[in-house]
């Protein structure tokens, strides 16, 4: 076993990486435009607006039109980044995402901001824990859930260059930068964060650093957990998942519903090829009132909670 990762003391809001990257890309490519629903501030696009006022299209509080406009801009030769709170982007405009973006196969980049339970006490209307389940069946829509600022920047740059529809899920939750050597972003490929053969913990987004901490805790008990950063949910890295299944036990971790998201995708795949005990860590449904920290703690999205899920999975291992 080798541990590749350590964590820095600093914590980062990935929206800053998103906004800086978009500004940098837009400076080099006049086709890049942003579309928002009165979400300039929450998308951190104030700087973009100052630099490129004609290339920021604010349709107001109108998500259906926002997404349709994205498709139209792509038809007209632009590279649109449609940025809004993930809950409204994916919930309110789901049919537009399906028909205008995915089915019509327009090269539009949908940026779901402050996803998961980032809005904490504002409650389930403002949480976006269903988005992965809603979007996963749109098989030509690449879905990426970056884990930290480095991966956020890499995913945005990849999306700008990729010809096709993309959904990127960005959080406002402070996360550490994962420090992995020689990191290369590869869409559609799992990233090995930590090697291990006793079980595999497969995480995405804000939970990857928690999964790593859980693995380090398990190591002190003599349990070696592989940790995979599954940033791309669509298309799923099936090889990495089936290799993970060879360890005999899997824990999935996501800041999302445990129904139909990352855990659902892995359960679907392994049940057909390599049935394996799986413990899914996430949210079971609408959550009660509470801060982000309280919700993470309450539902076991913590190193301790993930380690406990690992023990449950290991107990079921044949």
């Amino acid at each position, binding site marked *: 076993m080798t541990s590749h990762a350590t964590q820095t003391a600093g914590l980062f809001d990935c929206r800053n990486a998103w906004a800086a990257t978009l500004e940098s890309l837009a400076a080099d490519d006049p086709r890049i*435009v942003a*579309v928002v629903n009165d979400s300039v501030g929450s998308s951190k696009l104030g700087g973009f607006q100052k630099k490129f006022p*004609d*290339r920021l*299209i604010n*349709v*107001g509080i*109108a998500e*259906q*039109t926002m*997404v*349709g*406009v*994205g*498709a*139209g*801009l*792509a*038809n*007209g*030769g*632009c590279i*649109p980044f449609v940025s809004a709170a993930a809950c409204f982007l994916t919930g309110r405009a789901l*049919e*537009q995402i399906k*028909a*205008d973006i995915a*089915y*019509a*196969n*327009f090269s539009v980049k949908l940026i779901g901001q402050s996803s998961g339970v980032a809005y904490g006490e504002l409650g389930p209307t403002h949480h976006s824990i269903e988005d992965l389940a809603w979007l996963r069946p749109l098989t030509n829509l690449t879905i990426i859930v970056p884990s930290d600022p480095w991966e956020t920047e890499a995913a945005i740059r990849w999306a700008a260059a990729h010809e096709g529809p993309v959904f990127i899920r960005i959080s406002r939750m402070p996360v550490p930068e994962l420090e992995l050597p020689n990191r290369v972003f590869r869409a559609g490929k799992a990233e090995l964060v930590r090697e291990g053969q006793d079980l595999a913990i497969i995480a995405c987004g804000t939970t990857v650093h928690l999964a790593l901490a859980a693995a380090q805790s398990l190591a002190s008990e003599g349990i070696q957990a592989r940790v995979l950063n599954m940033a791309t949910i669509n298309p799923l890295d099936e090889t990495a998942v089936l290799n993970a299944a060879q360890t005999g036990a899997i824990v999935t971790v996501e800041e999302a519903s445990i129904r139909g998201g990352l855990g659902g995708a892995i359960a679907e795949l392994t049940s057909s090829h390599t049935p394996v005990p799986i413990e899914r860590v996430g949210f079971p449904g609408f959550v009660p009132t509470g801060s982000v920290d309280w919700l993470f703690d309450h539902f076991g999205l913590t190193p301790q909670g993930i380690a406990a899920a690992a023990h449950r999975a290991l107990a079921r291992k044949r």
Partner: protein
Amino acid sequence: MNLANDPIPLIREKALWMRRRAFKMVYDAQLGHPGGDFSAIDVISTLYFGVLRFDPKRPNMANRDRFIMSKGHATGALYTALAAAGYFPESWLDTYMQPNSKLNGHPNRMYLPGVETNTGPLGHGLPVALGIAIAGKITNADYRTFVLTGDGELQEGSNWEAAMTAGNRKLANLTLIIDRNRLQQGAGTEETNGLDPLDDKFRAFGWQVETVDGHDPAALLNALATKHAQNPLCIIAYTTKGKGVSFMENQANWHHGVPNAAQFAQAMEELV
């Protein structure tokens, strides 16, 4: 108008061909939406054979005018227009709704050249057309964008989001044509969820509004030539659902009705 360049005979000839061919497609497939095909065909023929700048050999030409068929169920009208305009061979029409056909019940731009976006669910065309028009402004392109919606379709709120944005942005490169046949799938629009006064609604949203007989190519050409330098243009085209076939006209049940052999034969006798 120079008589030699008068597009009206061609528009009428193509519209007649489109009605006959679309009805045969529906008859062969025993599927389709012929009532809405026939209310829209004169508008679409006028656009393709009198207004739009396009090259069927270069369907992705950057400065082509765009036509968005928001009432995507009226594929009989759209597919016959695209075939008549030269985007694909007429023989493709024979495959309408057959397994693996490029001619799905609702249009797919990945299957067919000339289709600008996939439509079918209502209330999608105007927002997409709005985005195309905004792109034209950003890129300083001189193409124009035309979108045809049904009238019942305007009960979808997304249209009004887009109408508000288009009016506020003063998008003079955008034209909306409403196929105002006053019937939706189940009943009349006004008895379902009334739209009138439709002209006042669009004026209030910042649009220039023209009303016209949607089966008169000369009147349509005139309306489409309206100067609207400061506003998007809305043309309310008064139409008759099932126009051209006596037993179909103004009958809501011909929204997705399909003809039997006798009805098909009678329609072919009337459509001359």
